[in-house]
């Protein structure tokens, strides 16, 4: 397996990073119009660049590192879930590639009733409630995971409640569908959740890396007791441990991206979500500690990284949920006897 990035992919990363560093407004317009980030993995025949999920993940990781309040993750995960061979899917992808549409995946509460789609002549009607829809305040189209496939529903046809969020850099909405007109954009909701999880994992890598970089910059410049904080071994070792967390998160998140087209994807995305969001939570929390007093001020970005990491950890499957989902993979036979390796 090759984890290396091509020169073009490295260029893409640098370009996205440059744009984000400018803190340009309107950022989203530039991301879409100038860089075409929503078009990356969309097939060329639908107006995209025909690149892979790797390019998408690069953009998501960098956007996460900048905590940019744009609906990139929501839109690109929705795009990646859509089946281009469905007519409605193809049409939706063209809109997403052009950047004229913002989309978001929509899932029901795992503890509540499923979302359903029923045929109504040539069309479909979607019913049910989707919760924690990411960037739900901005989305035009909800790509809804029902038990009979993936359906595109204009958010205008749903009752939308936008919630205040702990992590203020990303909105969430509850969408209530009551016989909402919908178009089928995929035969199965299957990979949608894994795509969202893998994207949250990769984004969490960016969040953790950026938080650690901020803490490292602080340690290198700030003096205490007559010496730079960066010379205190207890802090050095803490930074080393956090680096290990970031490295592990990077590996598991990118492993999931690299196996996105294989049978392994669901398991890999679940592992990545667990490993990377736990790591980001630990790293961003410890970065507050490394920063000391300013770390818990509103003014410093440290709490924003921490809150994003907290949200990414609890959304789309809590660590407790993910562990239970992984139990069959980890303990494949009830006899407890498994083959080596």
């Amino acid at each position, binding site marked *: 397996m090759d984890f290396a990035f091509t020169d073009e992919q490295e260029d893409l990363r640098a370009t996205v990073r440059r744009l984000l560093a400018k803190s340009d407004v309107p950022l989203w317009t530039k991301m879409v119009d100038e860089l075409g980030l929503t078009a990356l993995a969309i097939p060329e025949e639908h107006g995209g660049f025909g690149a892979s999920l790797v390019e998408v993940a690069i953009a998501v990781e960098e956007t996460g590192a900048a905590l940019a309040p744009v609906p990139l993750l929501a839109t690109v995960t929705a795009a990646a879930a859509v089946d281009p061979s469905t007519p409605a899917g193809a049409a939706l992808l063209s809109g997403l590639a052009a950047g004229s549409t913002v989309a978001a995946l929509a899932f029901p509460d795992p503890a509540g009733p499923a979302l359903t789609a029923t045929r109504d002549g040539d069309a479909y009607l979607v019913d049910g409630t989707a*919760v*924690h829809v990411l960037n739900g305040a901005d989305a035009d189209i909800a790509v809804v995971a029902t038990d009979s496939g993936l359906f595109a529903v204009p958010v205008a046809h749903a009752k939308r409640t936008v*919630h*205040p*969020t*702990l*992590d*203020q850099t990303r909105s*969430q909405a509850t969408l209530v569908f009551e016989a909402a007109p919908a178009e089928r954009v995929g035969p199965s909701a299957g990979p949608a959740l894994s795509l969202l999880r893998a994207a949250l994992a990769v984004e969490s890598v960016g969040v953790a890396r950026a938080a650690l970089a901020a803490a490292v910059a602080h340690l290198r410049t*700030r003096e*205490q*007791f*007559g*010496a730079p*904080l960066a010379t*205190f071994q*207890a*802090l050095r070792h803490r930074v080393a441990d956090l680096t290990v967390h970031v490295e592990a998160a990077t590996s598991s998140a990118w492993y999931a991206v690299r196996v996105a087209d294989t049978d392994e994807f669901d398991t890999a995305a679940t592992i990545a979500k667990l490993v990377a969001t736990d790591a980001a939570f630990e790293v961003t*929390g410890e970065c*507050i*500690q490394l920063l*000391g*007093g300013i*770390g*818990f*001020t*509103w*003014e410093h970005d*440290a*709490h924003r990284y*921490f*809150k994003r990491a*907290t*949200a990414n950890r*609890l*959304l*789309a499957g*809590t*660590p*407790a*949920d993910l562990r239970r989902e992984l139990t069959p993979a980890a303990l494949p036979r009830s006899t407890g006897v498994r083959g080596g390796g």
Partner: protein
Amino acid sequence: MDFRTRVRDWLSANLTGEFAALAGTGGPGREHENVELRARWEKALGAAGWIGLGWPASHGGAGADVATQVAFFEEYARAGGPGRLSHIGEYLLAPTLIAYGTKDQCDRFLPPIARAEEFWCQGYSEPGAGSDLAAVQTRAERDGDVWRVTGQKVWTSLAHLADWCFVLARTEPGSKRHTGLSYLLVPMRQPGVEVRPIVQLTGTSEFNEVFFDGAVTAASNIVGAPGEGWRVATGTLAFERGIATLGQQIGFARELDEIVTVAHDRGLLDDPAWSDRIVDAWVGLQALRHQALRTLGSGDGVAPSVAKLMWATWHRRLGELAMDVHGAAATLADGEPYELSAAQRLFLFTRADTIYGGSNEIQRNIIANHVLGRSRRG
């Protein structure tokens, strides 16, 4: 009637009427709540003689022993008494004055503290110094009958409410670190003092920056001799926590109860993975209690640092548990613009627990100095 009963009866008779709304408000992470009403409540406490319980009778206190003071804190916490506003004067300044101040200073400053007529704040930390309390740049110059104070302090709790501040200032120009500092008592309500709240990660505020720009205080408002400020300030640092610990733990138990209720309502308690985690939190709380009971008043040098590390670390983990039992719902705030749930406030503010009042790192330095001998740094 025994002391506990007396406290309990008084609280149940007085934490009523307008004060009923105060139950559970204030305190770390919630200092912004009900400030004016809490100030009135403090006056009621003072009038009833509950402030200065531990001061010697010769200084207007009740001369209560440690167990009696603990009993007060426990009953106060059990009754849901609000976070205190006069505690900085009562527990930090007053012991300092009693140990190092003159009779005139005690006569002038202790009674208004006991009556909650004057609130105090602490001017030690400075911007950029982090936990290095000796890195004082604030300076004070003697100018005839007054000291003129110029400089900046930070992480000053309740400064916006305070009438006075005890300030560590450099009174010998060119002096370094622990030398040349003085301990000055500076009135807050004057033109040369500006207080700016620090908004913290919860969106609320309880710490402040305090700017002194030629602020004036009478020449007599110095505790100890000029240049002795470090000795005076550190001699009473240990008063900061300790006695309040057992009362604090009653608040912790209440937070844990709320978590258990949520876990129960969400059906998590039938899952041993969840109940084990809650049992661990409960066991940790018992361990905090055992630690406090064993070391309170023991004079053990590292006990305050051990206790701070234990409770701050335990409390931070409790904040994580509070979020986890809510699951994904914990990512939604209660209201606009940034109204947080109790669990979210607990979760976020406990990140500050391990930093303020002597960070975990500082406590580890103190313990290591004790166990391994002093090191060159930290």
